[in-house]
């Protein structure tokens, strides 16, 4: 699964730490999501989408192998 978390974060001009604080997760989690190492849970995905005021589909997309 690919995501646009980093792009959206940079568009919003906020740091990983600021986004982490907003979502009540660690900076490590944001880093792992941005680098594609970790696929967040449904709850966290919804929170991320809400933080950027977008729909989940606009942030996360399935890839061929998924």
């Amino acid at each position, binding site marked *: 699964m690919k995501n646009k978390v980093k792009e959206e974060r940079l568009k919003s001009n906020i740091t*990983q730490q600021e986004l982490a604080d907003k979502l*009540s*997760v*660690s900076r*490590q*989690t944001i*880093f*792992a999501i941005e680098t594609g190492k*970790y696929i*967040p849970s449904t709850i966290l995905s919804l929170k991320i989408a809400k933080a950027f005021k977008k729909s989940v589909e606009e942030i996360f997309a399935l890839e061929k192998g998924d």
Partner: protein
Amino acid sequence: MKEKYFLPNHYKKAGALMMPIGLIIWSLTQIGLVHTLITIHWINVMVLTISFFSFLIGMYFISFSKEKFEDEYIDNLRLHSFQLSALIQLIFFVLSFLYMFIFKAEPSRDGGLELFLIISIFIFWLFYILHFNFSLFRNKKKIYEE
């Protein structure tokens, strides 16, 4: 594995102190080094018992204490480390029994069986502690490198 099983984060520091000290003293006692320094039997037994329990409790503190920031990613890392540790333990068991079967070398002399069982159990926890903490350390390092 929800938070009710976990201890506060400061237990991890206590565990990081207790576990190596306990292991070193226990190992020294096992190889008989403490016997040469202290000749009174009951003191030796007490040192052996206290050091072993210090090692055990330290290991429990490290394994079951919360991180400073507990979230789903940490849970995921923890689960991954548990799975890998279980696999390592299974491989260790299979290889050990294969070795014993092929070479007919049963660990019976000088508490060999006892040591084999202790290693078999602890290999799981030691690998779990090493893998989980190394994963955390590696992630933190990557973040600072970025």
